[in-house]
């Protein structure tokens, strides 16, 4: 009885005592991928059978030998590099972009706080008047002190009179922050571009940020599609969930989807219900997108909006 065993090094014909009788060695990885051809040749030549599973262990022992080390190393490295190359897909791009948006938000907050402190030495009234970070930064960058005083309607200021070179540094910072806000907007456009093609349903129902964040927490669209709706409902609330399981505290109602407008708009006693229904539909959307289904998100969105008005 002769057996055939193929691995990355080559195809081998083993006899009844599992000694190598004949072999075709693969020169490169492609030959291993098209192994059927060489397997067929050897099978006909020796009338060999495919190795049964219970003898697999013994066959593997044959290759635990120093002479094969180099071959194993070379081919496996090549194959692994190929599969790493193939593993990159839209999921990775979305996760990277949304992570950078999160980081930009943090950075912008810190920098704008600093700018407010700094510029308030020069014109403290402006920071009191304007709450929105983005607007504040834009005003500082574009307008002079006199124009700004006119805008907020004060004639006197308790800010110090600083020379122009002293103020220029603050304006430079403001311009830098504006660039960051611009970059954030570009990132959102980029996400929309990818998600429109890759997961249109999820994009329509969840929006750019929440959709991308779900993708980040669920690791990939494939994984997200496999998750039950109840898990999607609690993505991002892991800490509260595990606290609930461990100590028996109250269970969380919503994770990241609390930022969604439908949950936000719902009445206080209906928030849990809204989160559950939204998660339900999001789960269906993820499945539709992963298995390339039709576009149904608009109906779902309408349905939810009517339910929670």
């Amino acid at each position, binding site marked *: 009885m002769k057996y055939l065993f193929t691995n990355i090094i080559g195809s081998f014909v083993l006899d009844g005592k599992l000694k190598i009788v004949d072999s075709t060695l693969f020169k490169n990885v492609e030959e291993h991928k098209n192994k059927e051809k060489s397997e067929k040749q050897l099978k006909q030549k020796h009338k060999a059978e495919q190795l049964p599973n219970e003898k697999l262990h013994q066959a593997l022992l044959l*290759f635990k030998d120093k002479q094969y080390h180099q071959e194993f190393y070379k081919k496996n490295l090549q194959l692994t590099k190929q599969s790493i190359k193939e593993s990159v897909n839209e999921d990775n791009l979305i996760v990277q972009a949304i992570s950078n948006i999160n980081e930009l938000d943090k950075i912008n907050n810190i920098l704008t706080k600093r700018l407010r402190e700094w510029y308030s030495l020069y014109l403290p009234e402006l920071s009191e008047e304007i709450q929105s970070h983005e607007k504040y930064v834009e005003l500082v960058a574009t307008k002079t002190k006199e124009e700004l005083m006119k805008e907020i309607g004060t004639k006197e200021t308790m800010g110090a009179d600083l020379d122009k070179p002293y103020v220029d540094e603050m304006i430079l910072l403001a311009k830098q922050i504006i660039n960051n806000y611009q970059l954030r907007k570009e990132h959102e456009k980029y996400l929309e571009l990818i998600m429109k093609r890759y997961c249109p349903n999820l994009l329509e129902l969840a929006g750019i940020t929440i959709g991308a964040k779900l993708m980040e927490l669920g690791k990939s669209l494939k994984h997200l599609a496999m998750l039950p709706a109840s898990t999607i409902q609690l993505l991002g609330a892991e800490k509260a969930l595990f606290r609930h399981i461990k100590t028996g505290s109250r269970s969380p109602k919503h994770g990241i989807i609390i930022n969604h407008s439908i949950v936000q708009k719902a009445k206080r006693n209906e928030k849990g219900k809204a989160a559950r229904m939204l998660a339900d539909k999001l789960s269906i959307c993820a499945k539709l997108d992963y298995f390339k289904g039709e576009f149904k998100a608009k109906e779902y969105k309408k349905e939810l909006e009517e339910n929670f008005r």
Partner: protein
Amino acid sequence: MRSKIKAHKVFEIYEEDRGRRLFTKNILPGKTHFDERIIKENNQEYREFDPRRSKLAAMIMKGCTNAGIRKNDTILYLGVSHGYTSSFVSDMVGEEGLIFGIDPAPRVVRDLVFLSEERKNIIPILANANHPEEYIERVSAADIVYQDISQRNQAEIFIKNCKTFLKNGGYGLLAIKAKSINIKRKPKDIFIEIRKILEKEFTVIDYRILEPFEKDHAMIIIKK
């Protein structure tokens, strides 16, 4: 001057300061991969093996006397990750040895590829240890199976892999993370349960809880 570094009870491991620090002989002198401390003595370089980063080192620190790993061994390492532990195992087995490192995550295997380009005895394989048929054509049998995977069915994966790849008389090392099996139950109960499962198939020769180096982790060494 008296030599500071002595051989440890465990093969291929060296100790300093009465076993408070562990070292391995560096097979690539002058190169470190994870900013570890280096000691030079008698033209030999030793890399420090941190028990807080590696469960194998923690196991040895806890008093394990036989980890089973010897020079020139072939090792199947499931769950290599970035390759911190496996870089030391690569020191232990030496240039003649071989490590098949298996991990399903592309991100960490990417780091491992860079490591393996320097250390030629580490082979990175991007595959899921839960499905041995994915990589059965890419590996050989092994003297040691080392598993460090945080999955719910880690014991099942370990038994499956040991049955297929571990040679008779070879050692298997299983790092158990109790938190990924069940966070509600007491870790110790889980360890004992897994030990019982393994005892049905193999002989358990060592079992240690890795406190205080790793929380809620244990390691079991078996012999086939």
